[in-house]
């Protein structure tokens, strides 16, 4: 076992929280039952990591094993990364080939290795049917950098790929080529959808979220009514009907289920500034560039509560409500869709 592998395993172990250590080492599957039991999980982490490395040395662990542990860690803490969604498309003439993981893996490896020798590629399949691919990039003369890998999550039979990028931008093209070759698609493009919460992204693109809208759930309605009835009889709500309408509009826009987690929505405005000609300012055809970003730990939930909290009028602009149906959270607004270019509420 070389030094790089040992050091990498040591650092990965150091990152794992103590409460998860036992579970992750068991899932890793490098150690035998006896070895697992011999590890003292309650000592200082530094010593613990050295003990793990020593055992790995005995078992002859390789970089593959190290990468596997890294994937397990990142799978558990997948919300720490920013995920970008890509969609792959087929040309009309392409035949549907029966999918199998062995072929996928072989084609992916072959395609990447063809151009770049120094890469570490590791696959791991999880119970939720997702395939995690970890790629550590190197150059022709340099060994792969294990500390800045790219993670790719792929579900078979779907055109969507979730990628957490490493800093090396030039490797992106190679990765896309390998993905297209492996999954039998002809083109790939970014969907302008990004979030920290991988599961929410999956909910959005696999339309799992829509089911929440259709199933009628009477629970929250009852709760709402009961809170209204608890109010002192001396307090009279004058606009009960209006509030009810707002609630209904909101429900149409956002549904009544839990919403996917997104951290931001971005709108790039490239529209011409409109003013009366006599004012004479900014009246040229040059677009008025501006970037509006809404950010929140749970953006959609925040947008949903804007109107009930009295911070905006219902219905909200379609630009804010179309995030989930369009599966997009960065938009570019140009002059052509002029109907789309106004109506952003104050915040």
């Amino acid at each position, binding site marked *: 076992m070389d030094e790089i592998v040992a050091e990498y395993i040591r650092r990965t172990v150091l990152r794992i929280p103590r409460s998860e250590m036992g579970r992750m080492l068991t899932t890793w599957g490098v150690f035998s039952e006896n070895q697992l039991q011999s590890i003292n999980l309650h000592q200082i982490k530094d010593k613990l990591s050295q003990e793990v490395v020593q055992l790995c040395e005995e078992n002859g662990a390789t970089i593959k094993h190290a990468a596997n542990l890294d994937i397990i860690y990142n799978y558990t803490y997948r919300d720490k990364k920013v995920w970008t969604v890509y969609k792959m498309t087929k040309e009309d003439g392409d035949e549907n080939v029966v999918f199998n993981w062995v072929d996928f893996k072989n084609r992916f490896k072959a395609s990447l290795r063809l151009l770049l020798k120094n890469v570490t590629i590791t696959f791991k399949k999880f119970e939720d049917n997702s395939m995690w691919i970890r790629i550590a990039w190197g150059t022709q003369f340099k060994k792969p950098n294990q500390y800045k890998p790219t993670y790719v999550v792929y579900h078979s039979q779907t055109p969507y790929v979730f990628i957490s990028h490493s800093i090396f931008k030039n490797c992106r093209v190679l990765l896309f080529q390998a993905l297209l070759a492996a999954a039998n698609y002809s083109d790939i493009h970014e969907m302008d959808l990004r979030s920290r919460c991988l599961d929410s992204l999956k909910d959005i693109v696999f339309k799992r979220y829509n089911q929440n809208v259709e199933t009628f759930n009477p629970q929250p309605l009852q709760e709402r009514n009961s809170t209204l009835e608890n*109010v*002192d009889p*001396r*307090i009279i709500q004058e606009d009960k009907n209006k*509030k009810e309408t707002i609630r209904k509009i909101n429900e149409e826009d956002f549904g009544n289920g839990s919403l996917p987690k997104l951290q931001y929505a971005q709108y790039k405005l490239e529209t011409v500034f409109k003013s009366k000609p006599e004012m004479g300012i900014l009246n040229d055809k040059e677009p008025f560039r501006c970037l509006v970003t809404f950010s929140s730990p749970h953006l959609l939930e925040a947008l949903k509560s804007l109107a009930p*909290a*009295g*911070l905006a009028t219902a219905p909200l602009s379609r630009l804010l409500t179309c995030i989930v149906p369009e599966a997009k959270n960065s938009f570019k607004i140009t002059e052509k869709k002029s109907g789309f270019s106004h109506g952003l509420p104050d915040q």
Partner: protein
Amino acid sequence: MSTLAAFGKLPTLNSATILLVGTNEIFQQQLAETILQEKQDLKINIHLADSLPLPPERDHIRPRIDLIVFMVNMQSKHSYSNIEASLVHVDASFFLGKVCFLATGAGRLNQISIEVNAVLKLADLYCSPVLFCELECEKIRIATAQRLLRMLRICAGHMSGVSALSFSSLMKSSIGDSSFLA
């Protein structure tokens, strides 16, 4: 355009009615509950609305309104423009002392999106006093509730010797800000 009339209805015996207008439902509710917690020898009715005009279908059951409080959230432009639009639906006779502005959230200067001057100017334009308060703080909320109740008693004519008009002119001189009048 239906306007809210100050003297359109006869007063109800031994009761007073206050109308809170503002977009923040939670603050309204909290303030209303605080007002009702104060011990009173007369019956207080509190009506809540997010904007004016009030729905006409409830006109016949609504008692005469003695005091209108416009709640302006200093952190939301939407709240300000909403109040501005609502003011149009108030009869002029209300502004003879039966209207008051309540500016909330002015304490956190870094989060303010409406200038304090804008609210003062608006109040001056409508000849009505402004109260500043932070409704999140319970003590201030209770103090504000007591102040509003006192005003309500005067406006409803339950204090002998003081009329709403004389009280509001008193308030104005205590603010002592006549620079906006010019």
